[in-house]
């Protein structure tokens, strides 16, 4: 039977717990290591792995054609992520003496280094404490499909693989201006990346083997192998256009490295949408609810429903609602708790909007055991909100809704009979905006993991943005 189709008999509290501590990811990692290593005593092996406490370190491979800026970008990434930086050169230099001699010898004779030697060197290097504890960024390796398969078969699976890509003509041109600092090994460029210190400038040398003929040869070699390599890293591969300013390339690569791969771990989205009035919380919530089968929990309608059902909480809320005052936190929380602890919310997940409005309410929600795992702020400038709300109107005969700017009524007749909601008067809207803006700061202080979305766009663009952040794990903070 398909494992994913098996009914999940996991109590809801456990899924919250497992999600918080990353239990499923940990299991996956452990199982992976077990299957690759096949130790004779799995229990001792697992204890050892767990004690090492290294499930979250970055493991990155950066590949690309010659002169695409692999070394510079990977060095920047390694520094920023505080990991070890592995290049083909420093792998050779840091290998054991006899292996190093052998490799240098082969390199001098311009012969390829055999795969098993590479594998041995890399395996030894990755076992060193700095790679184990902090992770690694490997650059320029593998160069062939065989090498890629060889390192995979000893259990080296990078979490991220970046391909720096640029047209050949650009690369050849760029290689022409490539300069190397012989002391540090850093790479500079005569036009694009000239060092600021004169000391460095004076000692720069032209890189060896980057003439036009050499480049053509290297590029042919590269193109022969790259497709084979890419088929080995279909998971977690990202191609970045390297024909851009260095900072832009780095930013793209780094954003990708901060993201985490999707996992098969069971995940029930518990979403809170926060935003000013008219920011599209309701629209987004219903889109999410339809697509992901979440329970759409609108705080306002819940209160109205409680009043209509004449429940105890509803009765307490009546005087406040009729006087247009905020219903006290205790009552709202009771109403919410009743809804959120129902089985459908527990199993399918929920999307809550219209609550919390203050930090106390947010704290209350967390204290009640309803910890959202995604919080979004829908940010819209005040002017747009006013424009969105005050200009909308409804046709009392057909029930159609119009907006004076974006969806104006077709005929004069319709226009004459349009009616506006009293809530949409600009005075009212401004009042609501004011209350929201007074509290937004303290709420965002409380939800540190919250994501800010620019909601002043087409609803479906906003939806896509929210969607991508719900489906993928939250990006890592560096």
């Amino acid at each position: 039977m398909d494992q994913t189709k098996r009914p999940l008999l996991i109590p809801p509290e456990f899924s919250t717990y497992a999600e918080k501590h990353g239990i499923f990811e940990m299991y996956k990692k452990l199982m992976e290591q077990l299957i690759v290593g096949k130790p004779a005593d799995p229990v001792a092996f697992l204890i050892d792995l767990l004690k090492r406490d290294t499930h979250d370190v970055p493991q990155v491979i950066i590949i690309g054609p010659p002169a695409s800026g692999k070394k510079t970008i990977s060095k920047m990434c390694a520094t920023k992520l505080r990991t070890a930086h592995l290049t083909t050169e420093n792998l050779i230099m840091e290998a054991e003496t006899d292996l190093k001699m052998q490799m240098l010898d082969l390199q001098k004779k311009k012969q390829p280094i055999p795969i098993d030697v590479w594998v041995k060197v890399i395996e030894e290097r990755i076992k060193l404490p700095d790679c184990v504890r902090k992770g690694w960024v490997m650059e320029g390796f593998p160069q062939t499909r065989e090498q890629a398969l060889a390192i995979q078969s000893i259990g080296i699976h990078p979490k991220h693989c970046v391909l720096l890509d640029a047209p050949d003509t650009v690369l050849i041109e760029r290689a022409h201006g490539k300069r190397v600092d012989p002391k540090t090994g850093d790479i500079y460029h005569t036009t694009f990346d000239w060092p600021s210190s004169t000391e460095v400038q004076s000692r720069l040398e032209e890189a060896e083997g980057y003439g036009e003929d050499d480049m053509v040869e290297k590029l042919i070699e590269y193109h022969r192998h790259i497709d084979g390599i890419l088929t080995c890293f279909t998971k977690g591969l990202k191609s970045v256009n390297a024909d851009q300013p260095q900072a832009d390339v780095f930013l793209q690569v780094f954003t990708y490295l901060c993201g985490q791969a999707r996992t098969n771990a069971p995940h029930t989205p518990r979403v809170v949408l926060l935003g000013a009035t008219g920011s599209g919380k309701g629209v987004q919530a219903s889109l999410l609810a339809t697509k992901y089968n979440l329970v759409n929990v609108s705080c306002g309608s819940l209160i109205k429903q409680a009043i209509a059902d004449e429940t105890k909480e509803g009765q307490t809320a009546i005087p406040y609602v009729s006087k247009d005052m905020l219903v006290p936190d205790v009552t709202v929380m009771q109403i919410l708790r009743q809804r959120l602890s129902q089985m459908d919310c527990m199993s399918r997940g929920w999307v809550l909007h219209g609550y919390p409005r203050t930090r106390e309410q947010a704290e209350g929600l967390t204290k009640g055991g309803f910890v959202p795992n995604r919080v979004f702020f829908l940010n819209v400038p005040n002017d747009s909100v006013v424009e969105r709300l005050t200009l909308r109107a409804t046709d009392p005969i057909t029930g159609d809704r119009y907006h004076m700017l974006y969806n104006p009524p077709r005929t004069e007749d319709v226009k004459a009979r349009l009616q506006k909601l009293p809530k949409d008067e600009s005075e009212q809207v401004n009042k609501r905006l004011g209350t929201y803006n007074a509290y937004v700061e303290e709420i965002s202080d409380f939800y540190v993991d919250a994501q800010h979305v620019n909601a002043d766009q087409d609803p479906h663009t906003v939806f896509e943005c929210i969607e991508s952040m719900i489906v993928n794990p939250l990006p890592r903070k560096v």
Partner: protein
Amino acid sequence: MSTAGDVGTRDGEARQYLENHRVLELFNNLTSQLMYNRPDEPKKFMIDVLEKLQKSKITRLDYPCLFDDSNIQSVFGMLDPTNRGCIAFQQYSAALTTLGVKDFDQSPEGSAEDRVTFETFLKEARKGLSEASSTFADS
């Protein structure tokens, strides 16, 4: 999907390994321990459980298991509300399956008369539970 039988392929090898060392059962037990206890430091907790398992592998005693004798007793008590001191065979097998025991004695003492005593039940349950929690290759 290939079965555990086809050794030779890497997939088969991995499956064989997991089966020989009862890794999947080990993980299942770990999960149920985690689910029940929900410790604040799951890693430390898992190390503790695994170490306990390692110790019991040598001593062949005290396997880390979610159920102890009092649980077995209360299960029996539920099935025997009138305190007759025995349960039917069907109840016996259903109870053991619920506890997670797989290969229990299909014809225990008294099964012919459909009267399984508490002692028999306790013995089988204990044996089965330690079997289920001793998740390592038989050496």
